[in-house]
């Protein structure tokens, strides 16, 4: 009797897993709307989340070889649930206390939303049933997503997009600004959808119901800032037997508390005196300049690391083990190890879907190794830089790290053959590691100057101040 009471029945466990999955699905859809800030363009706090949802549905339709099996039937029901949630959110406009509860401003007219939904669902149905997951369509959608990403990262294009959206909403086009289109979560949605499309093209993507796919693509804890999970890994956790357990909940709670401390205490405090566009031009000497740079380096780590901890912690409570995103990056003895421990999920994404295919292709074309490394590292880091925004400062930041990685790669090759004997001595090895960690941290910290200052001229001026060549302050 005692063991029967301690171990829940299969039905009970199944119910818990199902309930968890339904809750994650519904909450993730709702979170996309709740987290989206209002923009100067009317009703974008409704339409941008809806667009995220629609992109996820289209990507799913383009990747799933659906037959008339149970998955298809379940997905049809999921589609109706999604439509129901969107319509319910739109309907909040008629209930005054709820009208600004989910979206920041009242949602658009329900009939308009309904007609848009019908068009979207028909499109998804046609893609799923008539066109199917053909490689050409997979690539087509991937390119479309990429174009959208570039449009959102490149200011003149974002401004054009803002103008078009303003025209649609009957607002003054001349007032369009890039800041009008603040599409929360799109960058990370792009990574997740692109991963699914690429896995599909490689034939590795398992069949997923619409509910599972949407939960993966819009997963609430990781919606804003990752980590970027891979679909097959995420699906494993989602389909695994789940029963709320205290160990996971405690560990999740610990990560959430740790993340909140990093983000809301350490990072927010450091932000008060971290390097910024304003203070870079005012700083009075090299010592102070270094202090601001160190503060920025720590602030960005605690801020992003804190967010990741919170996301990982929340997911852990729900039985999902998101990948780690940071592993003491500032203590690593070289730049390669730094990039293996900083924003790990992003670095792995680029490695899997860009760097490895590129270097493989170059090898098969007979390129020499140094040229492969240089091209691969530079272009990968340049893309990572430009992903933060298509501006010169992010490009320089990417190139800074690309060159650093190349130089380290060459140095590691040289060191392997020339100073292997010295490094065999433990004391020397430890000293070398310490020196490496100090040098790597400072290389990364100096790289943050490019990252933090939008104007490369100001960044250059800051380098001068840091090395005592001149002072920034008038």
């Amino acid at each position: 009797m005692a063991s029967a009471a301690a171990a829940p029945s299969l039905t009970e466990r199944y119910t818990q897993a199902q309930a968890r999955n339904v809750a994650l699905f519904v909450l993730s859809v709702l979170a996309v709307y709740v987290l989206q800030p209002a923009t100067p363009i009317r009703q974008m706090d409704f339409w941008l989340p809806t667009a995220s949802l629609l992109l996820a549905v289209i990507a799913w339709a383009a990747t799933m070889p659906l037959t008339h099996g149970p998955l298809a039937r379940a997905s049809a029901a999921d589609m109706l649930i999604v439509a129901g949630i969107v319509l319910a959110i739109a309907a909040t406009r008629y209930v005054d206390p709820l009208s600004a509860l989910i979206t920041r401003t009242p949602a658009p007219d329900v009939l308009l939303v309904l007609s848009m939904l019908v068009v979207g669902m028909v499109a998804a149905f046609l893609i799923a049933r008539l066109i199917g997951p053909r490689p050409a369509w997979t690539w087509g959608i991937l390119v479309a997503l990429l174009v959208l990403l570039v449009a959102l990262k490149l200011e003149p294009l974002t401004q054009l997009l803002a103008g078009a959206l303003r025209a649609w909403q009957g607002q003054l086009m001349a007032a369009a600004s890039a800041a009008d289109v603040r599409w929360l979560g799109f960058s990370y949605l792009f990574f997740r959808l692109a991963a699914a499309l690429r896995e599909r093209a490689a034939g590795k993507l398992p069949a997923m119901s619409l509910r599972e796919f949407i939960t993966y693509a819009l997963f609430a804890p990781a919606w804003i800032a990752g980590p970027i999970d891979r679909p097959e890994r995420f699906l494993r956790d989602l389909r695994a037997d789940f029963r709320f357990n205290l160990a996971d909940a405690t560990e999740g709670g610990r990560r959430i508390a740790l993340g909140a401390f990093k983000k809301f205490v350490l990072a927010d405090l450091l932000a008060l005196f971290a390097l910024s566009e304003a203070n870079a031009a005012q700083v009075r000497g090299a010592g102070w300049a270094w202090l601001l740079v160190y503060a920025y380096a720590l602030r960005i780590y605690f801020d992003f690391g804190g967010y990741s901890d919170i996301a990982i912690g929340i997911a852990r409570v729900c039985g999902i083990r998101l990948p780690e995103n940071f592993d003491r990056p500032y203590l690593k003895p070289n730049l390669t190890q730094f990039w293996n421990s900083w924003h790990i999920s992003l670095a792995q994404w680029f490695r899997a879907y860009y760097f490895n295919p590129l270097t493989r292709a170059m090898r098969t074309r007979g390129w020499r190794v140094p040229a492969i490394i240089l091209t691969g590292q530079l272009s990968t880091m340049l893309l990572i830089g430009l992903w933060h925004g298509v501006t010169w400062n992010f490009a320089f930041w990417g190139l800074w790290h690309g060159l650093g990685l190349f130089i380290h790669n060459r140095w590691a090759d040289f060191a392997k053959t020339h100073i292997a004997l010295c490094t065999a001595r433990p004391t020397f090895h430890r000293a070398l590691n310490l020196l490496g960690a100090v040098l790597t941290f400072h290389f990364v910290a100096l790289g943050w100057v490019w990252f933090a200052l939008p104007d490369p001229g100001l960044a250059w001026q800051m380098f001068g101040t840091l090395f005592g060549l001149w002072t920034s302050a008038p």
Partner: protein
Amino acid sequence: MDLRTLTRILSKALTWFVAFNALFAWANTPSNAGVAALGQLSLYNVLWPGRLRLPYGDDPDRAYNLSLYSLEAMFASHVVSRPADEFRVFLIGDSATWGWLLRNEDTLAGQLNALGLRASDGRAVRVYNLGYPIMSLTKDLLILRHALRYQPSLVVWLVTLESFPSAAQLDHPIVRNNAPAVRALINAHHLRADPDDPRFVTPTLLERTIVGQRRALADWLRLQAYGALWGATGIDQHYPETFEPAQRDYDADLRFKQFAPPELPKSALAFDALDAGVRMVTEAGIPVLIVNEPILVSQGRNSHLRYNFLYPRWAYDTYRDLLRAHLAQREVAYIDAWNAVPQEEFTNSAVHLTPRGTRLLAGALAPALSALAKQR
């Protein structure tokens, strides 16, 4: 981890949380004593250079400065809290003394320091800016009381009519939120203000806990953090590229607050606070110099009725007569610098000076300062 362990951890955490809050609330009795004690801990003058004026600012992101109520934290962040062998002159006053829109080197303290005055014993005269951008003699008294801990050799107190009306003495947040100190002043110097005035903020038990004092604690922490940018940039206020100049044309309005000509009764002005300050300083064996600070004397429309936006002529003239007679009767050193600065040397108000205007004022005060320094 089982449920029992988790429950034990959570109850321990809750107990510690309640205990720390209760302890903090107890230490914070009668009112914010704990926060005051914490305020004395400071990174300024240790890791960061001390500030050259008291912390004040409503745009922290650009000014690297903020307003807070803890006088202990404010003084601990000021360079005045660092002892030094020098002839220490403390300037007490309002925003004009603090240096609104002025860089530190352009404030009155900065300009007086630039003169390189020396005391009779050869020590350098170092002038400290203890102005605070609030117009209330009671606020000045509060700051003065605190400042006496830092061994001034001379106190220069700059006043203007706007700081005098008795009814407005307790209106300002820094006065209201330092109720125990202000009440102590009221009782010790028999000031006319009511110690039970409802404007005083008296925190309840819950408001004295860590949770209740989170704003004060965060302000203290932010003040320490902004010290890095103060040190790095030397900036402690936001200097806008443009500002609206002080008004030069006025309506034909003769009222000053609730007073209409010709009555500005002395009893409605806080001369009791002025006396208390003078007494507090002189009893400590420190000379004091009262300065009626310069005001904008406009030549615009209706300037025959008003000197400026703040003062109708009749009220200001009455005030000057009252102040002069009051200080003469008590033999207090006094300089009436009301018209020492021409109207074009005012910035955005009737009392805020340009760097050149401040230099003129410094020049007007320097002989008296030098003479008082030589006497000591």
